[in-house]
């Protein structure tokens, strides 16, 4: 088989994207036709990427062939296992989001549809192009395309002041990040990012130590901004809730991992391996991001904001895993590094599945009830039972419960932490198990947050009056696709690890975990630790079934529906007596008060208590920066007093200074 075939297939799909956007401009097409053709093309593209990614993971032997198009500027592409893995992630989320979008946007008219359908395929294509890029120029073009198209998408549905603000903030942070990346590439390519050197030519090139550190810092800023890494995360909780749900799913589950891809590609693969320092930096920043994200996610009232903060937490955890892997590399134990790296990548894939599912589900909830405010929702399990079941699967997966997929990757991460004592450095030995305890706290709080989200929205009594209906067929189909993915990867984690081993071989020259059986995880040895999710499921199922049958057989009597007892309370029971979102997490609010300074304020209009939360990074870092910028501009304003002659004087002085300098 042609080794270039997966790459060609993926590139063909990339080319379909602009075509689909152009197609949406056709004047006389009926809106529903427009919707079907465009979104089906997106689905096809995503499926092609899924296929080519899978092929790439299986077939392509290192070094992967490179494909160049055009003269100067030169476009260069390559599909190696690392890009193949992220293509799979993109393909899975893209397929599900496109299918969901068919149902989600069904009420939009032509203009509204165009707002979505023009940027959406471009967004998908840009992400795929980014993964296939093999030189700085292609990479940066794709990166900018991704940022621009997604900021249009944020404004596709609502154009309120908040949404505009969110899109603006997003664009601003994305551009600052892109600037950092441009500078980093310029340093890497000796000042000329257009030179057309492919990435393999740059790999492990000898850089001055200061230069390498500068590139590290710049890429950390650039990719960290996209990743939602604290303190560059400020755009994330604003942008995700503002976007329409299929777009939020894409942004959270596919676009954030692109930053991980960039980190792995540039910092891990291209930069010369040196020093233990940045593994520790990734670890610390990851833990900070995860802890901050999870704490804020528990305190949210808006379902989509809660999910957005939870994405931040997941990205933080993945960064922790990658940092740990890097530490293992620096300590000279590549097999353990393979374990941590696999855990991180597996978590990326899992996050794509369950977070995609949850965002899509929140979209269906919004469609059905017109709100994602958990203080208004409740009891959806009765009006949308199938969506509820699918969401339950997603919630259990993200809460890290066996035998679903989230648990499998978290289990691997903890196993990797437990192997830390094999490191030589004593301080690291002592710090890492404590970090593991921190990770456990994050995971436990994450399940708090997600149970809050599920319990308040889907269970209990409805907190406001609405007529909810079951989600459409397309939406349910898309969600079922992801839910099945969660279950499948949960039961057969070995398959995913096997697929990831190709990436391990690429990034840790020649090293990977031992061969894993599909249904079982034994990272180091069976005596050390093993986990067989299938037995779990069978064991639990058998136990439940036996219990049920035995109890039914011996004591079975018809059940009777009665009014709730509620400790004998006889008054009228209203939905407002249930926990509100603020009430559910009030104890956490109080316990972690010193960290987030949130407080509860009465809202006189709705007679409710609301949590007022200010992002400490915003207050402590961004606002002073803002004030500084304003003060500087005010100083600069003095230069401007409207006299033509003084402006001419400025120009003259500049000219003189330049002449002196250039001389």
């Amino acid at each position, binding site marked *: 088989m042609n080794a270039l075939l997966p790459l060609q297939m993926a590139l063909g799909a990339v080319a379909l994207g602009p075509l689909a956007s152009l197609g949406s401009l056709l004047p006389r097409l009926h809106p529903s036709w427009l919707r079907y053709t465009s979104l089906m093309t997106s689905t096809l593209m995503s499926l092609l990427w899924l296929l080519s990614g899978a092929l790439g993971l299986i077939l392509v032997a290192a070094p992967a062939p490179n494909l160049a198009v055009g003269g100067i500027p030169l476009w260069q592409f390559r599909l190696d296992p690392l890009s193949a893995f992220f293509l799979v992630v993109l393909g899975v989320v893209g397929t599900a989001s496109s299918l969901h979008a068919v149902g989600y946007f069904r009420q939009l008219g032509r203009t509204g549809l165009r707002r979505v359908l023009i940027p959406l395929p471009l967004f998908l294509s840009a992400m795929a192009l980014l993964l296939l890029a093999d030189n700085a120029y292609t990479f940066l073009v794709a990166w900018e395309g991704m940022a621009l198209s997604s900021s249009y998408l944020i404004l596709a549905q609502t154009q309120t002041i908040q949404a505009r603000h969110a899109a603006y903030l997003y664009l601003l942070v994305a551009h600052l990040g892109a600037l950092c990346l441009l500078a980093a590439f310029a340093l890497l390519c000796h000042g000329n990012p257009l030179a057309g050197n492919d990435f393999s030519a740059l790999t492990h090139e000898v850089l001055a130590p200061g230069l390498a550190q500068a590139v590290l810092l710049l890429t950390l800023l650039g990719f960290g901004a996209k990743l939602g890494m604290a303190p560059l995360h400020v755009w994330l909780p604003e942008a995700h809730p503002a976007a329409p749900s299929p777009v939020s799913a894409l942004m959270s589950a596919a676009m954030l991992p692109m930053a991980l891809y960039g980190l792995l590609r540039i910092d891990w693969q291209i930069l010369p391996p040196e020093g233990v320092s940045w593994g520790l930096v990734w670890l610390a920043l990851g833990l900070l991001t995860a802890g901050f994200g999870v704490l804020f996610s528990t305190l949210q009232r808006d379902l989509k904001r809660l999910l957005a903060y939870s994405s931040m937490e997941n990205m933080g955890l993945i960064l922790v895993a990658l940092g740990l892997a890097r530490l293992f590399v620096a300590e000279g134990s590549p097999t353990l590094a393979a374990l941590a790296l696999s855990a991180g990548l597996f978590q990326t894939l899992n996050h794509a599945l369950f977070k995609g599912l949850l965002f899509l589900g929140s979209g269906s909830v919004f469609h059905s009830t017109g709100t994602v405010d958990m203080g208004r929702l409740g009891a959806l399990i009765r009006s949308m039972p199938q969506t509820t079941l699918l969401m339950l699967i997603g919630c259990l997966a993200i809460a890290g419960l066996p035998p679903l997929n989230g648990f499998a990757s978290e289990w691997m991460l903890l196993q990797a932490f437990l192997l830390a004592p094999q490191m030589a450095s*004593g301080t690291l030995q*002592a710090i890492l198990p*404590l970090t593991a305890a921190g990770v456990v706290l994050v995971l436990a709080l994450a399940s708090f947050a997600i149970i809050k989200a599920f319990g308040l929205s889907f269970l209990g009594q409805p907190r406001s009056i609405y007529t909810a209906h079951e989600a459409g067929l397309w939406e349910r189909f898309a969600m079922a696709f992801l839910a099945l993915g969660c279950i499948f990867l949960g039961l057969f984690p070995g398959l995913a690890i096997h697929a990831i081993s190709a990436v391990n071989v690429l990034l840790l020259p020649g090293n990977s975990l031992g061969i894993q059986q599909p249904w079982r995880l034994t990272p180091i040895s069976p005596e050390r630790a093993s986990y067989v999710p299938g037995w779990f499921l069978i064991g639990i199922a058998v136990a439940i079934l036996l219990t049920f049958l035995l109890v039914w057989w011996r004591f079975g009597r018809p059940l009777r529906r009665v009014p709730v007892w509620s400790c004998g309370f006889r008054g009228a029971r209203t939905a407002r007596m249930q926990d509100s979102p603020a009430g559910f997490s009030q104890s956490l609010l109080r316990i972690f008060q*010193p960290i987030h300074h949130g407080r509860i304020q009465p809202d006189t209009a709705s007679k409710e208590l609301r949590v007022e939360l200010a992002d400490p990074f915003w207050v402590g870092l961004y606002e002073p920066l803002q004030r500084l910028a304003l003060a500087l501009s005010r100083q600069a304003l003095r230069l401007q007093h409207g006299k033509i002659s003084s402006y001419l004087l400025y120009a003259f002085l500049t000219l003189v200074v330049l002449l002196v300098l250039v001389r």
Partner: protein
Amino acid sequence: MRPFLDLFSLLSILKFLAAWMLLLSFALLAQRRLLSLIHLLAWQGITLALSTAMVAVLTGDRLLWVSATLTLSLKGLLIPFLLHRLLRRLQVRGDVEMSLNVASVQLLGIVLVIFAFALAAPLAGSLPAATHGMLGIALAAFLLAFLMMITRRKAISEVVGFLAMDNALFFGATSATLGMPLIVELGIALDALIAFLILGVFFFHIRESFESLDLHWLEHLRENQ
């Protein structure tokens, strides 16, 4: 008989005492009540005496027995008793307020312990192999006692923190180097006692001037001038 010896080998008891010492330091950091603070200090003194006794058995040094007895009577019994009496005579009641909350102080304590460990690791090379880590624990206990003094406001708890620091130094000297000259020890013990007496007098003065043992009143001295 091998498992029996393993089980009761003196060194592992010494290690256990070291861990216990560390735990007591954390307990001192977390404890709100003055009375319990004094009890914890007494326990620390007793632990110290026990570990000195263990070192005495290990090395067979007679003089260490004397020092263990001294430690027990002075730090385990006499000073806590005096403090206790002081507490009753000053009629200090209620909780100790802290400037930071317990959880963050504890977290800071954990960071300090890791720091102490990192500091002590290179120093431990010059010590007998069996007592590696003892130095780290002593240093950690010292820093924790210091942290405790920083976070408290009542004068009595400051004194408890000071005595805990003294205990930590003592522990480091006896356990890490397996023994310490008696003269030095006597000197330190006397110093501690004198410091304690001076502070006791000092307390009465503070209370006469301010009707309280809360040290933040001392801040007013500056403003009054």
